[in-house]
């Protein structure tokens, strides 16, 4: 039991933050989503979402691509393989410990 509890210390802090956890969980269910869709669905403010996405991008958990659909600018986000692995590990560690 103590070994499982101790594993909490190794938890990924990038994904542990609730806002980022919400983004990653949402992206796990879709192929890709743009910034506006994530903002609407998570309820995060524009600044918060932008900051969280930057951190997830830096960590390599989310891939961000800036493009256009007609005149409408799209900031497309998708979960990387690394992001999927980290989310799965995070869930297992938390579940085992708590």
């Amino acid at each position, binding site marked *: 039991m103590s070994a499982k509890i101790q594993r909490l210390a190794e938890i990924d802090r990038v994904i542990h933050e609730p806002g980022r956890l*919400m983004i990653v*969980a949402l*992206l796990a269910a879709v192929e*890709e*989503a*743009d*910034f506006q869709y994530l903002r609407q669905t*998570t309820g995060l403010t524009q600044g918060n979402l932008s900051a969280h996405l930057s951190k997830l991008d830096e960590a390599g958990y989310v891939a961000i691509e800036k493009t256009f659909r007609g005149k409408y600018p799209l900031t497309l986000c998708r979960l990387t393989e690394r992001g999927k692995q980290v989310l799965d590990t995070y869930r297992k560690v938390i579940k085992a410990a708590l």
Partner: protein
Amino acid sequence: MHCAFDCEDNMNQSSSRLLEETPEVIASRLFQRAHLRDGLPEIFVGTFFLLVAPLDWMGQNINGAPMAAKAAYAANILLSMILGMSLPWLIKWVRRRFLVEREGYVRLKSAKRQVTYILLVAAAIFALSLVAALWLKLPNLDRWILAALGLYVGAVWAFIGQTLRFRIVAAISAATGILLAFTALSMQLCLAIFFGMSGLITLLSGLVVFIRFMRLPIEAGE
């Protein structure tokens, strides 16, 4: 302030649920909520129900009716079929063509298998119940079917929506089906009333949500 509470609530819910459910389940719930936030699915399904509602009754009374009524009947069948088959595509098209600045863009994974399985199992249970009822030669079978149809439509709405407004629509649909089963009205008229009532409240619910959604200010993307 309201948004801040909402955000915090969303976050807390996501964090606590992650312990009990897989990320896919949590994300599916968030996605489902987003899918229903503009009311478009209800508007289209409600319209479809309203188109389907009089078909059986019209079919029974079409002989000897004027040409205009026959044309309206044929047009209704055609429209119902087109709308029924193109519903998901139509919703997606309207969103991408007119609402992308408000709603954003999302590309889904190929199929939501869990939802499809549950709906298929529910349909199979409904069909098996029908076969069993036929085999047992239950008296007033058409009335049982009507009540079961009400419960089935109600259960599907409650399962899909999982929000208060969907539960209200589900409860009204189920109650309408059950109440109609106890009346002495003809089956054709009962079906017309059932789908008419169900379609009308679904359409109204969708329109209210859609108007509220369109009144929200558009916030610029990143």
